[in-house]
């Protein structure tokens, strides 16, 4: 039983690392959006797996909230990326360089 939990946690940590790697390395706005989604889903996996092993269903509730909120977040993010695409004809964040220090 406990070993299963370790499996779930390992997958979730792997997803977290993949997501952060994706954000750090990729310069395509859509890929970065996917990377953020992967991190959120790593957390969701954690929540649902833990909710199975602790005497409390709050984790599943939070996972549902988190899925809904992440959908709203992606909608806003895609909107911003579409606006950027109309202006630059590209979704490469390295090309968005109006603001310099």
């Amino acid at each position: 039983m406990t070993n299963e939990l370790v499996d779930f946690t390992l997958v979730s940590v792997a997803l977290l690392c993949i997501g952060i790697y994706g954000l750090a390395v990729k310069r395509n706005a859509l890929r970065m959006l996917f990377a953020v989604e992967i991190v959120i889903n790593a957390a969701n996996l954690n929540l649902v797996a833990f909710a199975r092993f602790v005497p409390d269903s709050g984790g599943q509730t939070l996972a549902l909230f988190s899925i809904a909120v992440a959908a709203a977040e992606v909608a806003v993010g895609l909107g911003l990326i579409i606006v950027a695409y109309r202006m630059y004809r590209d979704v490469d964040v390295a090309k968005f360089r109006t603001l310099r220090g």
Partner: protein
Amino acid sequence: MVDVFSTPIVVMMILGAVGMALPVINVLRREQGSNTFYAAIAFGALAAAIAFVLHQLAMGYVSATDVLSGDVIADDMLGSFFAIAMLIVAVFTTISSFSYMRGKKYPAVYYSLILLSTIGMVMVAYSNDLVVLFVAWELMSIPTYVLVGFNKRDPASNEAAIKYFMFGALASAVIIYAISIAYGLTGTTDIGGVIAGLGAIDASLVPLALLSGGLFIAGFGFKMGLVPFHMWLPDTYEGSPPPVAALLAAGTKKAGFAAAIRIVVIGMAALSIDWSLALAIIAVMTMTVGNVAAIMQKSISRMLAYSSIGHAGYILIGLAVAPYSASALPGTLLHVLNHAVMKGAAFVAIAGLVVALAATHIEKLRGLGRRMPITAIGITVSLLALAGVPPLNGFWSKLVLFGAAIDAGQEVFWGPWLAIAGVLNSALSLAYYGWIIRKMYFEDEAKAPRVHEPRAVVAVMLFSIAFIVGLGVYPEPAIEFARSAAPLVGIMP
């Protein structure tokens, strides 16, 4: 249990009802509608919310701060303190938008998003459960992504929004990951339960608890603008509409501190692990990077963005020494309130500059003391207060914060060094603030004509000058309020 007529619920109902009604009104009227009309409605809602929070405080209906109460939403002093600071900032943003948004498209959506984001900030401050905290955090963040990119024909605004969105979304993802680990370790999402549970976990699981705490700090740190999570901040503040920059710098940033006080500081005491040194190092890095980078800026909004990073460092001093000094958290709260007003006023002044002169470059500020006298006085007073010049309010909150750091020196050797770093940084910041003031008053060769100052900006300037000087001359009530709102943290042996 939470009463239906408790402060957070009523504030949420007022702002939520009006915030969701605004777009509906827009549709029913079958026209773009005048900016003033929607701004007035939003202003009315925010004023009602502030009046209600103050009324609850005055009548003594608000309970003392108690993180362990087990309520989902805590109607306590800590939440009310932050709520007042955030609502003041939202009012600043709304009033300055009276002139900034004039003639721009979609005013109803704009004010609706401001109100919804304000609900999020206020609920973060009141939340006492990780589920509520996360949902409120997202409610606060998502509208601001749209607000930052609101000038959608402007490449700078869009770029600012995309950078802000990427980092903000990562911050939310990291926070939900931290929540998931804390939940897995303790089996509850109640903050009090999590803190109690973390104190009793098996020694082999302590690294996971540390990971969770670290992710919480990272997630909140993105919004607070702590180094090394600050890369998005200058670009975002510079590119976004200045009233929205005021909301970000003075509002959402403070929500990060509210959440950090509830979770990190109190959890730190419960785990009985010393994170203070790590926070202290981040604090010194944050204020140094912010202030040094601010010197080199040519745009006043970018300079204020870096100065805002510096101030996150000062506020973090209070969190770092909280276990060692009883005056640390009151100092933190006081500086949060003061910084909200000072920085809010400064960004509103920039909104006035953008409306009247269409410029934020520092060279364009020449002779501003004659061209826009009230805005110039407002900028001067808020900059001097940011630098901590007595007798303005920023002086007192820095005094309490640095005093707490020296006080902590009895327990930890690095306490006084934090205070020294803070004082040196304040001196450094006076240099670049003084440079702006010199440009405004003592460099006026061009004799450019006097320009009309937007009335809304003048109103905010007058209010904030009164607030800054008032609390500077007579700081006792604010210090008392901060002291009563600060949670007691177990003083470490």
